[in-house]
């Protein structure tokens, strides 16, 4: 290939500027595999237990999530299945992250132009990016395979599975390389990468569920069809490799047909004037947050929809479990429904955590307004600080209600559909309503930080993480109630679907949220703008 002069230099630059990110990704993926391996190895320590694994999965629901993994009666198959979800998203996103940062991101920042002006060939940066990213996905695959073998999975199968992981990553290296030629901004490369990951993952899920050809449209499906721990075949691996290479070739073909700094798709033009709504502070704020509201609502709907659709499996697991079955006795069905209600309360709590995360991110985005200098301009207008902050907090809070409502409807709807007996929507909605004060605490916390310690926004994420962990793990670890109640998600009431709200908890949380919010507004009126 001509025009690749200096590919060594470019590879060096990509490694020097990106080795931390690269090593983090590889270690994270291999680390998750190691954790999976050690916990599964301890749980399924006899061949009998391993054979029982497939039966415990609850059939088709699992196929939608993880595909149909071959050899579930071997340790390797069990590991592959447990790792499936992380693999499905981890490998593609790793490929997108590593490939985009050395291509479109550097090009957008103007760094590539600088290098191409030196003795670096036009094709060298893309080639170097593909080489480095491919090396990283291969390393990850081999690392995961080695870890599996070390935990006692079949060695040949582990190697083949590791290569399958790498092949999935390689396809997405190709996808990203093409996207980096087609669109002009790194952000858009990410959007293409994430959207394709989700789409291909869904296709594989549908294909696996219906056992039809859709499976073959998705590289996720090809990895499954290597059947590393069943009757192994190498040709699906070759298919993935071939598609990856074809995509990389396409990327080079595109590269030769565009200017440095531009993209194949010319940026779209749009309206030259702002609408009347956009010219109002409220309209502008809505416009700024609506993308995030939409994105989080989709995530909430997808997650809650999946959880709800598993309702039948949950009941089956409860009823089939010999230990539990004996414990439940004659009225097993009724008690199973009680247990299901408790599980649904947990799902609602997770929805509340998701909404709280949206809130923290939404109010955190106001820091970006400040750093970008737009807050300065807004405040140099005839607008008080209170009105500026008030409008944004209002929009974020309303957005949180939308995200929560969408998630609750998805959970209630899919549960009702899965069980087909009675309507869960009302129960779930009233449970979700109970969690609202917990979310409001995070509105208050984020606003208070913005007003008094804007550089400390990360603290809000820290509190959220601790609150979520306490609520999530606390009951299992039998932590004392005092500690549990320190988590807003528990303080509103445990098992909200069955028991409703805790009145003192609700009152305390509402007051804390209100006081924090008011404090934040006071601080925001008094502080310097901008704080960098």
């Amino acid at each position, binding site marked *: 290939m001509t025009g690749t002069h200096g590919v060594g230099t470019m590879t060096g630059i990509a490694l020097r500027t990106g080795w931390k990110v690269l090593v983090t990704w590889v270690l994270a993926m291999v680390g998750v595999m190691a954790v999976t391996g050690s916990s599964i190895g301890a749980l399924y320590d006899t061949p009998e237990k391993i054979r029982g694994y497939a039966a415990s999965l609850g059939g088709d629901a699992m196929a939608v999530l993880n595909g149909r993994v071959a050899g579930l009666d071997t340790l390797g198959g069990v590991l592959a299945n447990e790792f499936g979800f992380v693999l499905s998203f981890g490998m593609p996103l790793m490929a997108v992250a590593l490939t985009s940062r050395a291509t479109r991101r550097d090009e957008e920042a103007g760094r590539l132009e600088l290098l191409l002006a030196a003795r670096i060939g036009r094709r060298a940066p893309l080639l170097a990016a593909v080489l480095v990213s491919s090396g990283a996905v291969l390393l990850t695959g081999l690392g995961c395979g080695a870890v599996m073998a070390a935990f006692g999975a079949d060695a040949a199968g582990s190697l083949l599975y590791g290569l399958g992981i790498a092949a999935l990553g390689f396809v997405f290296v190709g996808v990203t390389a093409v996207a980096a030629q087609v669109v*002009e*901004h790194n952000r858009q490369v990410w959007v293409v990468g994430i959207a394709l990951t989700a789409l291909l993952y869904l296709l594989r899920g549908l294909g696996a569920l219906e056992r039809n050809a859709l499976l073959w449209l998705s590289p996720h499906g090809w990895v499954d069809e290597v059947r590393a721990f069943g009757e192994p075949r190498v040709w699906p691996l070759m298919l993935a490799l071939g598609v990856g290479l074809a995509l990389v070739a396409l990327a080079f073909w595109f590269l030769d047909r565009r200017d440095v700094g531009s993209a194949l798709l010319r*940026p*779209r*033009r*749009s*309206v*030259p*004037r*702002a609408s009347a709504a*956009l*010219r109002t502070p409220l309209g*502008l704020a809505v*416009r*700024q947050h609506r*993308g995030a509201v939409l994105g989080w609502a989709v995530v909430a709907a997808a997650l809650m929809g999946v959880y709800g659709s598993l309702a039948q499996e949950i009941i089956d697991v409860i009823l089939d479990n010999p230990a539990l079955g004996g414990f439940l006795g004659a009225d097993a069905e009724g008690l199973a429904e009680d247990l299901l209600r408790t599980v649904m309360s947990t799902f609602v709590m997770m929805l509340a955590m998701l909404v709280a995360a949206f809130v923290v991110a939404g109010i955190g985005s106001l820091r970006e307004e400040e750093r*970008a*200098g*737009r807050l*300065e*301009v*807004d*405040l*140099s*207008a*005839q*607008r*008080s600080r209170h009105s500026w902050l008030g409008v944004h907090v209002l929009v974020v809070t309303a957005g949180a209600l939308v995200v929560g409502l969408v998630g609750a409807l998805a959970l209630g709807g899919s549960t009702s559909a899965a069980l087909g007996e009675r309507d869960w929507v009302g129960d779930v909605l009233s449970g979700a309503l109970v969690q609202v004060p917990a979310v409001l605490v995070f509105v208050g916390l984020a606003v208070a930080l913005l007003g008094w310690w804007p550089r400390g926004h990360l603290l809000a994420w820290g509190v959220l993480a601790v609150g979520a962990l306490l609520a999530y793990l606390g009951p299992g670890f039998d932590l004392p109630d005092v500690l549990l109640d320190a988590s807003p998600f528990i303080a509103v009431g445990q098992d909200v679907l069955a028991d409703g709200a805790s009145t003192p908890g609700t009152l305390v949380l509402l007051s804390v949220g209100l006081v924090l919010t008011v404090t934040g507004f006071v601080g925001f009126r*008094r502080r*310097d*703008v*901008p704080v960098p």
Partner: protein
Amino acid sequence: MTEQLVEITGLRKRFGRVQALDGLDLSVGRGEVHGFLGPNGSGKSTTLRILLGLTRADGGVVRLFGGDPWKDAVELHGSLAYVPGDVTLWPGLTGGQCIDVLARAHGRVDERRRADLVDRFDLDPTRRSRDYSKGNRQKVSLVAALATDVELLVLDEPTAGLDPLMEEVFQQVVHERRAEGTTVLLSSHLLGEVEALADRVSIIRSGRTVTTGTLTELRRHTRSAVRAVTVRPPDLDRVAGIQDVRTGTDDEGRTDVHASCEPDAVGALVGALHDAGIHTLTVTPPSLDDLFLEAYAGPDR
């Protein structure tokens, strides 16, 4: 005495260990274009932010339209428009939408002027601001501010990123606005730009005003550089207003004289040199550059 729209005396502001402003003075009269000059990091942006009530001063007096900008920010902002030094526009909005949103923040837009400026600054208002170059983004901020009907324009290093052609347009527009009676406070670290536009100039350094006045006044304060070779050693003691005198002897026994000289003293100095028998003489006229460089490079406080 003209009405002062901006009056700042003894302004102080500290950020942690950095004393950003240390007794800064600035006053801007109605109708003038005031150049606010200083090297990077000298405190220009901080001063403007305090003037707009965005940042709170630690000490000193700040008056904007006669009021206190920290307490009465909202009311006072009714008749000014501000272009910050470093602003990233809403990436998803088009240039035209950004202009409308910004202009709406500044105040009442003059639609005819807006259309005229978009045209003169050669701006494509249908492109999204994330697709703009730095210069084009700067033009958006400028068009929005310059198209608004306001009494005072506060511009923080507004021409950063503009090409010379567009800088020319910018200067024309500022001249037009001034002719209509608009007051302009223009910060810059480039002397040339301020020289072309400003009626009065304040030069600051390390958070302190070094000098202020009209360009003519400033020129009067700068010195001419005089260099001469005379047959006999001149008697310079009787000449007032000269400084930095250095004398030497060249290889033919003549006296080599260097001196800097106030504008009013040039005649007397040349007289004294004449009495000593001038062999060669150069007088370099006062330049604002020297003053400016002196302010930039001079010792700290």
